[in-house]
């Protein structure tokens, strides 16, 4: 049984259940696993806890799962781009746990690396440290943060081989490699499917051990731009 599945629905078959915790790669709309998010939407699974830096926008990314009210709780660092989020949150229909972005990334990295807890300076003396143990090391105060391990991670990669070895492109890397390590099952969507040996083993960012299933993005797969900013061309 190989790791490659014919489509996103098949790649998620048997993995989804109500109330589960899903880690989703991506930063804004960059490097998000859109196909897998859409398949989760189609599945109708509910009461999800989603760990993702952002919550998508109203009609894209994780915003799709907010529209359908499949999400019970978000663990994120910034959700400012999503109006649906604001409405559901203010109506008490959605929980949010804000983590500093670096603490979020490190909690996931720790979860994947068998580290149940670590200490950080980030957030000491602020609301995020409330209720958490603190400790002094070399005269400085640090707050203890816990590792996160999810039931499922969904990620997006640029290229992947059938062994599950993955590479990412530019800033679409972001949270994808770290989330790939921190769930009981990781499913990856890849833009370009290649054979083992086609990716230089020195360039592989996510070794295949972390990826249980993968699916190729279909031709014409669309990557959206959230803030299209440009500069004028210099006049000759």
């Amino acid at each position, binding site marked *: 049984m190989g790791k490659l599945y014919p489509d996103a629905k098949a790649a998620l078959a048997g993995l989804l259940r109500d109330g589960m915790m899903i880690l989703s790669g991506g930063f804004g709309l960059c490097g998000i696993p859109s196909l897998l998010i859409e398949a989760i939407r189609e599945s109708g699974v509910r009461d999800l806890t989603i760990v993702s830096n952002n919550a998508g926008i109203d009609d894209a990314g994780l915003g799709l799962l907010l529209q359908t009210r499949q999400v019970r709780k978000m663990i994120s660092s910034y959700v*400012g781009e999503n109006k649906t989020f604001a409405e559901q949150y203010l109506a008490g229909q959605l929980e949010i746990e804000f983590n*500093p972005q670096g603490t979020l990334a490190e909690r996931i990295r720790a979860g994947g690396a068998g580290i149940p807890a670590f200490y950080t300076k980030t957030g000491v003396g602020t609301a995020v440290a409330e209720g958490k143990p603190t400790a002094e090391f070399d005269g400085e105060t640090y707050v203890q943060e816990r590792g996160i391990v999810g039931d499922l991670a969904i990620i997006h990669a640029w290229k992947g081989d059938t062994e599950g070895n993955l590479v990412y*492109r530019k800033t679409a890397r*972001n949270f994808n490699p770290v989330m790939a390590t921190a769930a009981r099952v990781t499913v990856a969507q890849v833009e370009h499917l290649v054979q083992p040996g086609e990716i230089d083993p020195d360039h592989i960012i996510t070794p295949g051990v972390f990826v249980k299933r993968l699916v190729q993005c279909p031709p014409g797969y669309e990557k959206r*731009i959230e803030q299209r900013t440009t500069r004028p061309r210099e006049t000759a």
Partner: protein
Amino acid sequence: MPWTRDQMAARAARELQDGFYVNLGIGIPTLVANHVPAGMNVQLQSENGMLGLGPFPYAGEEDPDLINAGKQTITELPTSSYFSSADSFAMIRGGHIDLSILGALQVAENGDLANWMIPGKMVKGMGGAMDLVAGVKKVVVLMEHTAGGKPKLLKQCTLPLTGARVVDMVITELGVFRLARRGEPRVELLEMAPEVTLEEVKAKTEAEFTLANA
């Protein structure tokens, strides 16, 4: 005459040094990139996983896989490198970034910073700000001196903190203040914008401050 936003950014750029790795926040801090002195090697870090940020792309050359922490399309440079969010914040938290320039809602005499949340308003999240102020070697706040006529440089922050005792310097349209992250809290006014009077600064500042070299 108070400084314009661009002049504020230019003043902040004087805190740059050759070889610095710098993280610029959204808003006025972004303008600092336009004021890097010619011949000075400064690499910009973007916390979503990039060192060596280039300028915005030409129209038609936007790349959805290449954005900054403000989700804006950007370009790469020959010096650029990419890494994961975990590696990016390991870099930030580990003290490898020399300078962070960011905005603020409030700064207190003791260097406390509030810039992420106004209770009662919809909360968007702190993003990477708490990590940046906790981890970067030098933190410069670039902000308007007042908001709705009220001082932002205060005796104590009234809004939820982003970091406790994390600000080294505050630059506003009126002048430049140096703060102390350790020891006794201390605010020193280092410079004033042209034609701005000490009386004006005092009137618009709640924090106690002294004149540097006074």
